């Protein structure tokens, strides 16, 4: 890649992902509206929301950590984004593998946690407590599935894992080659995206939207932007690990929307778990699935 194209990609990449995120977010709201036999909002409703929030005249924060946290939230997500390869742009992936990505993903969580902590609102703190417990819930099976894949291919680099899958065609896709891992990761992904039945963090009726309680104006706006980037980011992780990556943008978008549709369909038909039930579900259903898959791979290698 030439320097110029790298620079162009560096600028364009977050914007493109943001646009995709807006579409995915709008699609989700439209989809749930249609399921409920409503008309639903516009397809780019999240975009309007962000603009509205960012153009608020007054904004209040509870202190400097609250301000910095919001930067950590978005900055950390953008940082992670650059290390996730998409078709045509994988320049930064050579500097950090999947382990790096999975740890970078923690920066936004930590940032948000710190900022919400400073707002001194117990609803927020409870939300963070739940968010972190959920993190412990879904990350464990998700990382085990990755460990399995990495052990199989003897690499921790995301690029290599994509390459192997694309070389082998459809039958080499992670989901097909190691179905147990694929399914376990899918369940974990549902939790990672905070969709029902694992939507315990925001819980508007119990804890007043948890982490978002004291967030208003541009603070909430940046949280929305981060969310809109994080959704395609996390879906892309799954696509790269289990759905064979993508060789062009059309394929990528198709996979993105198909995967997203599957997840939000599940979201539509479930209620919400209690937090300990959600964590237990992850550890009792998803984790053993992943463990079985990994044992299978170990037996295969040996």
């Amino acid at each position, binding site marked *: 890649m030439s320097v110029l194209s790298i620079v162009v990609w560096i600028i364009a990449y977050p914007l493109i992902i943001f646009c995709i995120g807006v579409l995915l977010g709008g699609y989700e*709201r439209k989809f749930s*509206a249609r399921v*409920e*036999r*409503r*008309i*639903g*909002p*516009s397809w780019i*409703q999240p*975009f*309007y*929301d962000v*603009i*509205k929030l960012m*153009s*608020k*005249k*007054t*904004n*209040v924060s509870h202190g400097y950590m609250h301000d910095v946290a919001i930067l950590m939230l978005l900055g950390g997500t953008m940082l992670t984004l650059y290390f996730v390869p998409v078709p045509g742009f994988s320049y930064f992936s050579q500097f950090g593998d999947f382990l790096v990505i999975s740890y970078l993903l923690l920066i936004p969580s930590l940032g948000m946690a710190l900022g919400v902590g400073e707002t001194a609102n117990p609803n927020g703190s409870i939300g963070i407590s739940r968010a972190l417990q959920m993190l412990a819930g879904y990350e464990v099976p998700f990382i085990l599935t990755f460990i399995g894949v990495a052990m199989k291919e003897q690499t921790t680099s995301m690029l290599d894992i994509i390459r192997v899958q694309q070389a082998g065609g459809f039958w080499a896709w992670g989901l097909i080659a190691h179905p147990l891992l694929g399914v376990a990761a899918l369940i974990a992904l549902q939790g990672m995206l905070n969709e029902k039945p694992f939507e315990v963090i925001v819980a*508007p009726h119990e804890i*007043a*939207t948890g982490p*978002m*309680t*004291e*967030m*208003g*104006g541009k603070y*909430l706006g940046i949280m929305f932007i981060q969310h809109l980037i994080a959704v395609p980011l996390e879906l892309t992780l799954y696509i790269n690990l289990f759905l064979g990556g993508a060789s062009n943008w059309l394929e990528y978008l198709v996979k993105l929307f198909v995967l997203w549709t599957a997840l939000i369909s599940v979201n539509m038909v479930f209620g919400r778990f209690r937090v300990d039930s959600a964590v237990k579900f992850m550890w009792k259903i998803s984790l053993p699935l992943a463990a079985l898959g990994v044992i299978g791979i170990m037996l295969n290698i040996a």
Partner: protein
Amino acid sequence: MAKELTQKAAWDRVLAKLKKNSLWMLHYCTGCGAIELPPTMTARYDMERFGIMPMVTPRQADILLITGYLSVKTLKRVILVYEQMQAPKYVVGFGSCTINGGMYWDSYSTIKSLDQYLPVEMYLAGCMPRPEAIIKGFSWLIDRVGKGEANSWRDYYENYEFYRKNQEELFGGPIQSYQDIPADAQKFGILEARQ
């Protein structure tokens, strides 16, 4: 200078057009009228198609929906909540009780006219207003926001003495507030932006 202003005005016009598509609502449901909100939100009337969503905390909301009568005690809370909201913010009086006391017109414990205490952007008349009326009203509000005419919230900053006087008269003494409204008006430049 003039050019800059027009540019800013043009930008504001574009922003207003975008902003009108997203209005989040905090409903203060002490009155009986709240019962009309669920049908307004759900499949039958689907408020979300206008981008109007219920929100939970005052920090996040744009619209403060007062669904009906307010006793003096709850008005204190409403004022607190209103002041915690982020401008631009719109108070919507819902039902006749907020307009003139409605069927509580001679009650000793309810307030009679909300706009004495908070800057009301829009009233929805009726006892109680049907979802059609609510949708109609909100469409009108959306239009006003889109044209940049929904400016009642500025009134609270500009004529704060008026509201404060009324509030204190009602409560019979200085009121508890976290906000220093005139200082905020200075800080956020709300007063000069008017010209």
